[in-house]
C-alpha cells in the first residue's frame, strides 16, 4: 500500500532487454492475456534471461504498477485481481523452469500471515530462493499460525521467510516469528507493511529484514543456524492491539457510521479497515509512521475518485472519537493523523 522505490535494473544490453520485456509484460497484463504473458516468460527463459531478473525487474515492478492503477481508480478490484492472476501465472512459468535447479542449500519455508492475500511477493521470493539452490516450501496466502507451526515442526527448515504487505497481517506475522524462533529457527521478514527501513521488522523480533526478493536471498544466506526465542512485546500496547483486534468488526461499523463519506464510495470499507490496521501496526511495533502514511494513502484514493479529500481528516477524527476507550490508540490517532 505504500509506494516503492523501483528496483535498480541490470545495466547495459540486459537492462534494455529487461525494459522491453517489462513493457511487453505490462501490455499483456493490461490486455488480460495470460497466454501472452506466460509465452513471454517462456521465450525469455529459453533465451537464457536470468529467471531472478524476470521476477525482480519484470514481474514485480509490473505488479506494483497494477496496485497503482487500482489506487488511482483506473482499475476495479476485479481488474486488479485479473492482472494479478496473470502475474501469478507468469511467476509459475518461471518457477517451472527454476525447479530444475539442483538443491545446494538447506530448506526454507515461505509464508504469508493471516490477512495477507497478496501471495505474489511470497511466490517471487520462493522462486528466487529456489533459483539460488534453496529447497523451498511455499504455504500460499493467509496462513494460520497453527498450520505454519505444523510445517516448521515437520520440515525443520533452516529459515522462515514471511512476506507481509498488509499492515493488518503484522499481528500474525509476529505469531509466525514466535513460532519459528521458539524452535530456534531464524525468521526473515519483508514486504511493504514493514516500510522502508528495518525498524518494524526488528521491533517484531525478526532475525532479519529483507525489502525485496534479492535481499531475502542474501539475508537467508547469512543467518545464524539457531536463534533464541523472541522476547515478549511491550505488554501495554500489545494488550491494546489485541483488544482492538477482538473488537474489530464493531469498531469498523461504528467508525463507518461516524465518518461522513458517501456510503456508495467503493473504497469506504477498505479505508476504515486500513485506518484501524495502521493503529495495530503502530501499537505492535512502536513505529507511528503507518498512521499518517495511511491517512495520506486514503487522501490519494479519495482524490483519485473525485471525492472530497478532507474526508481523510474527517476519518481520523471519527476514528479518534470511536477509540476513546483505548488510551494509547486514541492518543496515537489524535496526535499523528493529519488534521488537514
Amino acid at each position: 500500500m505504500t509506494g516503492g522505490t523501483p528496483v535498480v535494473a541490470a545495466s547495459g544490453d540486459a537492462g534494455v532487454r529487461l525494459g522491453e520485456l517489462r513493457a511487453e509484460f505490462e501490455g499483456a497484463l493490461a490486455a488480460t492475456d495470460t497466454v501472452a504473458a506466460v509465452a513471454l516468460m517462456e521465450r525469455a527463459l529459453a533465451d537464457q534471461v536470468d529467471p531472478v531478473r524476470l521476477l525482480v525487474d519484470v514481474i514485480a515492478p509490473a505488479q506494483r504498477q497494477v496496485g497503482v492503477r487500482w489506487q488511482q481508480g483506473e482499475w476495479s478490484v476485479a481488474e486488479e485481481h485479473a492482472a494479478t492472476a496473470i502475474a501469478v501465472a507468469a511467476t509459475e512459468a518461471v518457477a517451472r523452469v527454476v525447479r530444475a535447479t539442483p538443491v545446494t542449500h538447506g530448506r526454507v519455508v515461505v509464508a504469508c500471515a493471516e490477512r495477507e492475500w497478496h501471495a505474489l511477493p511470497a511466490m517471487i521470493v520462493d522462486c528466487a530462493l529456489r533459483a539460488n539452490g534453496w529447497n523451498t516450501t511455499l504455504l500460499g496466502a493467509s496462513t494460520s499460525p497453527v498450520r505454519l507451526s505444523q510445517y516448521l515442526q515437520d520440515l525443520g527448515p533452516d529459515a522462515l521467510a514471511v512476506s507481509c504487505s498488509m499492515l493488518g497481517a503484522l499481528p500474525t506475522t509476529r505469531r509466525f516469528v514466535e513460532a519459528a524462533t521458539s524452535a530456534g529457527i531464524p525468521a526473515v521478514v519483508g514486504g511493504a507493511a514493514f516500510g522502508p527501513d528495518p525498524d518494524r521488522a526488528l521491533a517484531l523480533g525478526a532475525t532479519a529484514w529483507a525489502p525485496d526478493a534479492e535481499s531475502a536471498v542474501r539475508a537467508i544466506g547469512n543467518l545464524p543456524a539457531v536463534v533464541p526465542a523472541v522476547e515478549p512485546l511491550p505488554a501495554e500496547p500489545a494488550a491494546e492491539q489485541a483488544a482492538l483486534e477482538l473488537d474489530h468488526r464493531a469498531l469498523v461499523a461504528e467508525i463507518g457510521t461516524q465518518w461522513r463519506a458517501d456510503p456508495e464510495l467503493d473504497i469506504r470499507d477498505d479505508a476504515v479497515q486500513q485506518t484501524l490496521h495502521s493503529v495495530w501496526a503502530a501499537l505492535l511495533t512502536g513505529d507511528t509512521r503507518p498512521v499518517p502514511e495511511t491517512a495520506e494513502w486514503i487522501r490519494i484514493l479519495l482524490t483519485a475518485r473525485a471525492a472530497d479529500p478532507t474526508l481523510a481528516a474527517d476519518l481520523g477524527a471519527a476514528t479518534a472519537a470511536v477509540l476513546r476507550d483505548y488510551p494509547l490508540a486514541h492518543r496515537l490517532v489524535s496526535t499523528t493523523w493529519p488534521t488537514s
Partner: protein
Amino acid sequence: MGTEVASGTEVASGAAAALGEAARVEGALAEAGSAMTAPARVRPELVDEIAQTVAGSLNLRRMVLQLLTAVRPELADWAIVVLADLRGGAIRVYGGDDVGTKTRVTRRALSGTGLERILRSGRSELLHVALELADDESLSTLIPDGELRRQAASLRPVDVLGLGLTARGTTLGALIVVRGQGRGYDETDVATAEQLASRAALALDSARLYEERSQVARALQSSLVPPPLPVVPGIDFASRYRAAAEHLDIGGDFFDVYGAGDDWLVALGDVAGKGVHAAVLTGRARQSIRTAAYFERRPGPLLSALNAVVYEDRSDRFITVVCARVRIVPAGLEVDVAVAGHSAPLVLRAGGSIEQVDVEGTVAGVLAEVEYESTTVLLRPGETMLMFTDGVEEARGARGFYGLERVIELLTEYAGAGSEAIVSALEQDVVEHLDGRPHDDIALLAITCPGEA
C-alpha cells in the same frame, strides 16, 4: 497495493540478541577464567534453561541444533551429538565446529570404542587427555570421525566427556562435549552434565517419536492432498483448498482433473464427515473415478460406477460429487455436467450474468443402482464454470452464513477475469467472512475458456 520496496539487507535483532546472549555468557566465563585457579563451573540452572530451549521444537534436527548451540560455551567449547538409527546400522553425528554439519559413520567403525560402550550401556565416560597426547588418534574412542577429531584436537582439549542420551529405557545416542585450556570437568560438572543429558534425551526421544509418526503421516497424506492442476493449453483451470483442520491440509473435500489433449474430466466432491477419516475416503473416491474414467468418460455413467463402488463398500458414508467432461471445440469449451447430490456448478457468462447448470442427481453410495443424467454447457471465450463444496455457502461468520447469493454477487464483478482471479477473490471473501471462526472443508475449482469475450 504495492509489493516490495527499496533495497539493502539488514541482519539484526534476533541475531544480535543471539550474539548478545553469547557475549554475556562469554563475559561471565572470562571473569571466572581470569581467576584460573577456579575453572568455570556449570551453573545448575543451565539444565532448566536448555530443557526449556529445546522444548520449543518437535523436530529432531532442529532440536539437536538447539542443544549443540545451547551447551556452548558454558558446558563445552566444542560438542557433537551422536544418534543411533534405531532401524538400521547407521550412526548420525551432528555438530562440530559448525553446528549444522551432519556426518555419517557405520556402527562397525565404533567397534571397541568408548562411544560404543556409551551407546550400549548409557553410562558416561570421561576422557582426560594428556597435553602431549592431544592428537586426533587419542580422541578416536569418543569422536568417531577423522575430520571431527582434527577439529577437536585443534582446541588442545583437556577433557572429553561422553554422556549417554537415555530416555524411556532406550539409549538413543550420546552427547560428546569437549573442553580445552585448563577447563576440565570436575565431579559437579559431570553430575550437572548428566542431568542435562537426561533431560535432553527425553525431549530428543519425543522428537524422534514425532518424526517417525510424521514421516508415516506425510507419506499417507501426500496421496490425499489435492493434486496440482495440469497446465492445459486451451483450458484455464484454477483451484483452492482449505481444510477444516487447516494444519492437516487434508479433509473430506476433494477434486481431481484427469485427461489428455482436448478431452478432460474434472471431479469435485465432498465426503460425509471431516478430518483424516473422511480424507481416506476421498482418496478412494478419487482413485475409483480415475479408474472408471479410463473406461468411461461420460459423467453420467461414470457417477453410476462410483455410486456402485461406494455402495458396495458398505461403509455408512456417502459422497456428493460434481463431474464434468471438458472438451475443447471450435466455439469454446463443451462441458457435460452430472451431479450426485451436489449443488450444480455456476456459469459466469461474458456479460456478467450468472446461471446455475440445470442438473441434479442422487447422492452416491446410498442406493444400489442410480442412473445419472448429464447436461451440456458451452463456455465461450471469457466464460467460467465454477464448482465448489458446501463449505463456501455454509461458512459461518459474525453475520451468519456466507450463502449462495453472496457467491453470485461477488462473481458478477468478475466476468472475464479468468479462473485464478475468481477462485482467489472468492477464497479471500469467504475467509474474511469467517474472520477466524472454524469452518468446514472448502474446495473451489474454476474452468474458464481462455481468450477475449
